[in-house]
């Protein structure tokens, strides 16, 4: 009985963790769906967005270190603090500008190239953004605080204690993440189903050439998709940054999103969510039941083994499009 309760606590927490993974995976899916690009830089974009947010919030002078090194001055802060909401809005603007820059400087020159080449361009982008973020805002750990609560939720603990006799641990940040992720997905689905731009985006995802021939501007759509992905990166950055501070390792959360993507399918938004949930629950349960027997720290590889298990039966991911190959 106790085992069962513990296991269900783990399932609940696994689901919550899954949502956090899915947030990162969403950004990948959006870009892949619309442009067929596997965006390696998504994790770095999350880091960059979080750094920019903290920088704006705390009134840091961008490129302070570079300016100081070149001119011998000692600037660091403007001396003001920007409210969180405004800072998020400003960061979103920065992400849109970034999307425009990426489109103008990189993607525009690579139209019609093979996927592996576009993938590689995003590798270059990842290197560049990582360096840029550090030069702009410095490499120290930053505390990100936009007012999201953190820590055990008393209400949930009391409720489960009353129902089952054992108070579950649920992190308030995770609850917020779940709410935000749901809102985000709902907004994305509504956008792509009911707006003109959204439909255009789906048309582009379906067939570039056909979309072009009915007068859809590829350039605009790509900028839009990258902006949205930048915004999703910002949300993921806020969530993970609140959890463990903003620093280089934040970009490595992309590794957590990879098995989610492969399990859910690269082209499906619901796939990212469901994939995230399956991975979250699966790895936590495995660590709980099997982990102690074989020495623990199994989560990193078990996520991939789990995804592999699913893929053997559905090679295009759970929700991926089945591609019919003809000779």
């Amino acid at each position, binding site marked *: 009985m106790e085992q069962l309760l513990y296991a269900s606590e783990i399932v609940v927490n696994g689901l919550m963790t899954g949502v956090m993974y899915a947030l990162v995976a969403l950004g990948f899916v959006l870009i892949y769906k619309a442009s067929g690009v596997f965006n390696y830089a998504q994790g770095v974009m999350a880091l960059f967005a979080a750094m920019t947010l903290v920088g704006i919030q705390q009134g840091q002078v961008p490129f302070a270190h570079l300016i100081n090194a070149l001119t011998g001055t000692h600037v*660091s802060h403007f001396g003001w603090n920007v409210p969180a909401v405004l800072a998020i809005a400003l960061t979103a603007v920065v992400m849109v500008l970034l999307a425009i820059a990426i489109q103008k400087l990189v993607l525009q020159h690579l139209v019609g190239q093979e996927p592996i080449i576009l993938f590689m361009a995003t590798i270059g982008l990842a290197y560049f953004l990582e360096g840029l973020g550090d030069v702009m805002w410095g490499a*120290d750990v930053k505390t990100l*605080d936009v007012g999201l609560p953190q820590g*055990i939720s008393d209400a949930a603990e009391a409720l489960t204690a009353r129902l089952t006799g054992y108070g579950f641990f649920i992190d308030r940040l995770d609850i917020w993440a779940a709410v935000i992720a749901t809102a985000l997905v709902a907004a994305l689905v509504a956008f792509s189903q009911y707006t003109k731009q959204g439909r255009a985006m789906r048309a582009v995802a379906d067939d570039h050439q056909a979309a072009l021939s009915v007068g859809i501007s590829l350039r605009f759509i790509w900028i839009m998709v990258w902006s949205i992905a930048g915004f999703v990166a910002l949300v993921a950055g806020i969530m*993970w940054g609140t959890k463990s*501070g903003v620093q280089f390792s934040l970009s490595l959360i992309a590794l957590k999103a990879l098995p989610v993507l492969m399990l859910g399918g690269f082209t499906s938004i619901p796939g990212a969510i469901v994939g995230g949930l399956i991975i979250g629950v699966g790895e936590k349960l495995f660590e*709980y039941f099997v982990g102690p027997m074989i020495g623990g720290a199994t*989560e*990193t590889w078990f996520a991939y083994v789990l995804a592999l298990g699913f893929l053997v039966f559905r090679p295009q991911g759970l929700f991926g499009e089945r591609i019919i190959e003809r000779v």
Partner: protein
Amino acid sequence: MTLRFASLVAAAVMAAAPAMADLVVPNYSYRTGPYAANGTQYADGFNDYFTLLNERDGGIGGQKVLTPECETAYNTEKGVECYESLKGQNQLVVAPLSTGITYQLIPKVSADKVTLYTPGLGRTSSKNGAAFEWVFNAPANYWDGASVAIKYLLDQNGGSLEGKKIALVYHNSAYGKEPIRTLQELSKKHGFTLTELPVDAPGQEQKSQWLQIRRDKPDYVLMWGWGVMNAAAIQEAANIRFPMENFIGIWWSGGEVDVEPAGAGANGYKSLTFNGVGMDYPVYDDLKKHVIDTGKASQDGQYVGSAVYSRGLYAAVVIAEAIRKAQELAGTPEVNAEQVRAGFEALDITEARMAELGLPDFGQPIKLSCANHGGDGHARIQQWDATAKKWTLISDWIAPDAEVLDPLIAEDSEAYVKEAGITPRCN
């Protein structure tokens, strides 16, 4: 243009070769990569102390100290590249702040005859100078740390840990696994149960581990973490409302950057330390006058006085004292790497000497010998005060349990002796 560039490159490759008379103590720093936040502060403290010596005293024994910096990014390959490139500059001491790089360099320094100094990190058994001629890890090592933590807990529990549960949350790497053997021995001796909870690098996601801690309710949690893992663990501990005063980290889990992200939740968190904290030491007056106010501080002195900065400064202090000793022994201010090794081996930093340096009670007395390259291994406990945002020392120096550690060190260094095929010295 091309020519100018080519000559520039040529100049770069030749690098700014120092005048042979200068003392070269390179700073193997990492200000980028996953551990940049901690590495930066350490490197600043290291640089600033040597800058102080140069500015105030004109170096050591009249010889300026150069600290050419080399970025390792905590990456072993880059660390080796740094080592090879600095070898040509006649480096006297190698002090990489990385256990991984240390293991790479242990065989190399013995072949190249350069001293490797790893305060509070690296290979623990290098305390045994008989086996590790060129490696020094004074004043304390990981096994000392594990033992001191348990000793402290014994004190807290009136001398007995019988039946207590202790969990170890560790970085799943060579570094994090260091204390396990010691803790296992200690658990046998003192009758507590030990649960090992590995966390894979980088360690942002530790929910499983902390859920388990919440279920098992261990009396104490020890942590061997580094980088983002520290901050995430402290945050998770606060999340599950684990009593922070029962959560003790190794010294590398005791920096400001580790506790600050958790905000008020981190209040009461404890960690080991082998150096003093805060700025209530006379040396900081000199530092302010000669280094910070003159704008010569590393990175504008933004981290002066932080816990990790202090540790970097302490490493520099010990190296400077060893060089001074070497000059004394050699009778000349122009010492070479081999003489510096002798200086390390004859090192004797007394309490009076620390006070003279403007750091009274900042570190324990260090007296090294041919057989003892690791000092006494004392450490103290510091506690984080989240409202004042500072560390406070809450215990006196605690000695490790030599009865448990000595056989372990003997065993591990014996393995090294056999593996490397060397004859132990010091007979």
